[in-house]
């Protein structure tokens, strides 16, 4: 009996110790869904002994809402898109990374080192980048697809077979490119034109789906669908008649970034995690899985050779310019919200 008791005591002591060790050694990550390969997460834990706790989100806005509604102080790092880094910095949700805190900062490719949404990269490091455009099933339509008319003024064979992303930012940015007006325009005539154009365009749209943007194209439910380039490459692998468009009017470019959150409970481990993702070999694993570009130098040797020739990440000479989504001021955003409500009322 005595022996049993002491065994039990030892066991519970071990459990307590194990738990303390675990609590010391974790990093809490708030990440996009279906993005980072599990093997890479396991590799980080094997190398550092730090356990990765991960929650996922499905849109930049949902992530912001959950952080503002009490998520701060829970998470160490998050992965916002370009414009959201700027918004989060303005809202005071991001911690500053001092010079020298990241050993691998020198690995960032020069063109991604100083970006408009985070000058000097004081809050963020590059994660993945790519474009948002749309795909067309060439079995349904064999005309020219490199025009935004496909989405907003489609030929009859595509009308009623279009899936849009359920995201105000992506839809309105593309609509502004279609009309050739600046994003977040404050010009009333331009905003009225944007509203009127979308009212006419929406009758051609079958659905708004972001989570299943790939699935609706692969299944044939939609013949046209707004989609991110990497998701597009995966869709084409499952249905080879799908083709990614690079409109002459332009397309949306985005970059996801790993940011250090204010009040991070495990700040040291968060920095280790960021340094880990600044290793070319590690970030290449994400690119190979997600089919996006990386934003680091010297990644090429670790990349799947097929990535270099992906039609989804190599715009033809005719393609218009890529543009980041802009952050609107409060008054313009109110008009944008009204236009979006009009689209979906």
């Amino acid at each position, binding site marked *: 009996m005595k022996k049993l008791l002491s065994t039990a005591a030892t066991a519970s002591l071990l459990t307590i110790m194990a738990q303390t060790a675990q609590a010391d050694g974790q990093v809490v990550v708030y990440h996009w869904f279906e993005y980072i390969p599990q093997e890479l997460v396991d590799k980080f834990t094997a190398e550092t002994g730090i356990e990765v706790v991960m929650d996922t989100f499905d849109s930049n806005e949902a992530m912001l809402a959950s952080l503002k509604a009490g998520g701060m102080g829970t998470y160490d790092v998050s992965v916002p898109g370009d414009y959201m880094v700027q918004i989060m910095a303005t809202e005071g949700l991001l911690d500053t990374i001092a010079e020298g805190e990241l050993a691998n900062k020198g690995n960032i490719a020069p063109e991604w080192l100083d970006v408009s949404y985070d000058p000097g990269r004081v809050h963020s490091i590059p994660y993945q980048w790519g474009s948002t455009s749309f795909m067309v099933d060439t079995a349904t339509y064999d005309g020219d697809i490199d025009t935004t008319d496909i989405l907003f003024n489609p030929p009859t064979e595509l009308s009623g077979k279009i899936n849009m992303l359920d995201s105000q930012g992506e839809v309105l940015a593309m609509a502004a490119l279609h009309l050739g007006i600046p994003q977040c325009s404050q010009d009333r005539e331009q905003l009225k034109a944007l509203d009127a154009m979308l009212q006419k365009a929406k009758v051609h749209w*079958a659905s*708004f789906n972001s989570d299943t943007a790939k699935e609706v194209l692969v299944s044939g439910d939609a013949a046209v669908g707004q989609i991110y380039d990497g998701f597009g490459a995966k869709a084409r692998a499952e249905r080879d008649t799908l083709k990614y468009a690079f409109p002459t009017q332009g397309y949306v470019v985005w970059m996801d970034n790993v940011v250090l959150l204010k009040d991070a409970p495990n700040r040291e481990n968060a920095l280790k995690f960021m340094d880990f993702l600044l290793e070319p070999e590690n970030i290449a694993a994400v690119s190979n899985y997600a089919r996006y570009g990386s934003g680091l130098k010297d990644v090429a040797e670790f990349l799947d050779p097929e990535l270099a020739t992906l039609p989804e990440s190599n715009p033809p000479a005719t393609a218009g310019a890529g543009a980041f989504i802009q952050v609107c001021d409060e008054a313009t955003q109110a008009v944008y919200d009204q236009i*979006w409500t009009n689209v979906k009322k």
Partner: protein
Amino acid sequence: MASGAASGGSANTDTYEEARSWLLLPAWVTLVALSLIPVLLMLVYSFLTKEFRGGVIWEFSLAAYDQFFFDRGLFGDDPATLEWTYITIFWRSIWQAGAATLLSLLIGFPTAYFIATRPETSRPIWVFLVTIPYWVNLLIRTVSMKFLLRDQGPLNDLLIGLGLIDSPLHMVNTNFAVQLGLFYSYLPFMVLPIYAAVERYNFALSEAAADLYASKWTTLRRVLLPSVKPGVIAGCILVFVPSLGAFLAPDLLGGAKNFMIGSLIEEQFKGNAGNWPFGAAASMILLTMVLIILMIFARQQARAEREV
């Protein structure tokens, strides 16, 4: 309770009386912490000023309710007219939820009647069968429904195979698909209360009605239905109320082309709008509507009982 006190002796009763308020504590805590406080919080938020990109500023404002009822144009400076946008969205949701409830009642009532009239030993098996699909997550079931309905899906394949139709019926992204999805999501909530009511029903009453030359239809209408009415009403409320706020089925099966009450509110918190007071105001208006509907039902029931 009274007879228990008489036979149980006074000492025993006192212990119960003393313990009673403590025994009720968990119920009170649950009610206040999980139901009352969140609703009050919502009520307060709906009267606050919105903060840009989510959050509230602690200043009293009627802006959220103003936005709901008055249209001031794209730029917010036209003279105010009645805003139809949100009324239309609410009406659409009520209509969808109503149709789903009716569909559930039409299928659910005969199902419940069937189960309640089986021999006592086999009834649990039938109830069990009704609940089996609901062990699976709602999202999975809704997505599966979409797979079944799509243009190149099994249902269309079957109908074409049988020669009933020539080209696929377009069902995904229609109102019909949404109603079907809602109906499928909440059917057991209709079947189970009606089953409970029919099971308690004394079938000797139906026999008596038949002896008095009532037709089967009259027996159903004048004898059975009034007896099981509380179960039917409970079932209707249990299907209608969650359908009203649902957004999974409208998003996945309806294509999210038009806002429903649920998705409109979701957009205020999770979308670009980030307008928490407006989301709270829309929720309060929804809550008020549901309360009114429940009160009408309750009053009708009370009147019916008085007449009996």
